[in-house]
């Protein structure tokens, strides 16, 4: 049984101009010990969907429809107190900016202990031992000494480690990481990603990793969900999405990243994402899609099955749709996979 299931989730925001349909029917699930990366640009609904899972939507946002099931309980029907217990307990979250997620006036040891005491119901002494263990786990040297220090005495990368330690202190089953490395330098980013993978191995926590960086996704994800304009357009194992992508939006994302050996003009997706005040009738990506079919403008494509684990919402998968050539980089990725002897799992 999955740790977390999201079923037909619809989220809207009330604004002066009207209702913004930020998430428009999203389904996914997360298993124990797996990392699901949700990829998409700003406004795709990736952060909104996960904030709904945490129960921390902005005050003008509301869940219009759908279920979020954590360990058999639907959190969209929970009371405020139940939600609070669950938040931090079952599900913990780490954010992009480590400085604003830490209390600047409190010693970091105390900040880690707070969650441990609240969610693991242990004494202060035990909590301290656990907190120091956690500091060691997230790779902070001299944990006893560091325990007594304040956030400003740490560098950006170290702060993000502490934020991770705080999140883990609650013994969560699901960890939501919202762009946790975007604010960090590449070298520090690589360290934090390694740390997160290592922790996952040790604790078996399920991770939802939100990012717009496909390089990071390739590094951390077991499965990948691609979101566009409030809907999933493709979901599958990491290999399936990178080496056998089906949706033109996924192609666009893969092709618009320069690899270290790319030359000539970069592939680019033209235009701008749609305004979700006025959600389009068919596939929201159609106006920016050079492989758009007439039907894409008329009718929302269903999630077509590619394999048991791989689905994509594009009419190109219709048996009678014209065959198209994906961009060169996508073709090269497909080829390289075969050459490396990979098998799509």
């Amino acid at each position: 049984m999955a740790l977390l299931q999201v079923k037909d989730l619809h989220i809207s925001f009330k604004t002066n101009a009207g209702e913004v349909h930020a998430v428009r029917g999203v389904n996914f699930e997360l298993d124990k010990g797996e990392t699901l990366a949700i990829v998409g640009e700003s406004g795709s609904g990736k952060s909104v969907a996960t904030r709904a899972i945490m129960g921390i939507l902005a005050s003008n946002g509301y869940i219009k429809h759908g279920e979020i099931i954590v360990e058999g309980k639907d959190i969209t029907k929970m009371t405020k107190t139940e939600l609070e217990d669950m938040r931090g307990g079952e599900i913990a979250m780490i954010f992009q900016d480590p400085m604003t997620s830490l209390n600047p006036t409190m010693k970091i040891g105390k900040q880690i202990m707070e969650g441990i005491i609240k969610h693991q119901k242990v004494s202060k002494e035990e909590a301290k031992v656990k907190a120091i263990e956690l500091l060691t786990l997230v790779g902070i040297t001299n944990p006893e000494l560091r325990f007594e220090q304040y956030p400003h005495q740490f560098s950006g990368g170290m702060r993000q480690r502490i934020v991770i330690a705080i999140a883990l202190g609650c013994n969560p089953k699901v960890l939501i990481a919202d762009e946790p490395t975007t604010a960090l330098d590449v070298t520090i980013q690589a360290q934090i990603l390694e740390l997160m993978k290592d922790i996952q191995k040790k604790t078996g926590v399920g991770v939802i990793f939100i990012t717009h960086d496909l390089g990071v996704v390739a590094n951390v994800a077991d499965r990948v969900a691609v979101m566009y304009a409030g809907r999933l357009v493709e979901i599958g194992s990491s290999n399936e999405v990178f080496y056998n992508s089906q949706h033109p939006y996924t192609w666009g994302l893969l092709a618009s990243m320069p690899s270290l050996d790319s030359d000539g003009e970069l592939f680019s997706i033209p235009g701008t994402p749609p305004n979700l005040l006025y959600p389009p009738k068919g596939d929201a990506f159609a106006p920016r899609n050079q492989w758009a079919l007439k039907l894409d403008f008329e009718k929302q494509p269903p999630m077509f099955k590619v394999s048991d684990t791989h689905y994509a919402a594009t009419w190109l998968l219709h048996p009678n749709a014209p065959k198209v050539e994906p961009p060169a980089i996508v073709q090269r990725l497909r080829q390289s996979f075969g050459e490396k002897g990979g098998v799509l799992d």
Partner: protein
Amino acid sequence: MSKEKLVEVKNLKQYFKVSGGQVVKAVDDVSFDIYKGEVFGLVGESGSGKSTTGRSIIRLYDITDGEVKFDNQVISGKISKELKRSLTREIQMIFQDPYACLNPRMKVIDIIAEGLDIHKLAKTKQERQERVYKILEIVGLTPDHANRFPHEFSGGQRQRIGIARALITQPKFIIADEPISALDVSIQAQVVNLMQKLQKELGLTYLFIAHDLSMVKYISDRVGVMYHGKLVELADSDDLYENPLHPYTKSLLSAIPEPDPIYERNRQRIPYTVDVHDYSQEQPEWVEIRPGHFIRANKKELAEYEKQLASKAK
């Protein structure tokens, strides 16, 4: 590409006083040249001084020491009013944050026309409007965008408005300070392609500042790597990525995430600390180890790097 120098930076130092009487050496003795028509990439992590270098060149800061030349004229320190005026037309800047770089209270037409207004380049209202419309078209927007306010645009569109504003005075040299790092992946390619197109069509020269090494490699002809206020390595971009010599450059290159899961699973990261350099006996210098390939090293390290290059050449 001609080998004519457009920008010459010599021993640039930019120190800032901070509270407690301390001095931060944001840029410490940095020298490089930028040739006409090239894209010069500057990479480094936050706090490496790469943005400060750009801002010092365009005179947003008064430099502490050193010299900057533009078109064979000294443009740092005290300069004449006329020169200042012409520089503000010839050197322009593109900024990082598409949300903070446009005045939220101004219409797009007034934002883009600011250069025209300041330098009184448009004689009539009609001409002003026509020039703005033309530049909007160049950056892929339309005249009906002109009367809107910035908050109605997406990040990529705003960044293109920022580019239009920089282009209106017909500059020769553009400093792009992390122009894509705040944008979504799909939009980054749009902006980079636009910048390349403009460079070819208008014969622009860029200083492209970024921390995204794959994008810098892609767009730049030559790349300089900064670490803690100092340039540590500078070479043609292909050369730098194929033959990195400085351990920091190697570490930086090894950390770039690639959109390829199998490559990622097998990636070996090379860590870097300053402790790998032993500068107790001899101080490092800025040396041209191969034509066009500069490195900061002392004699002992140079010998080591020579060996590496020799073995690679085989």
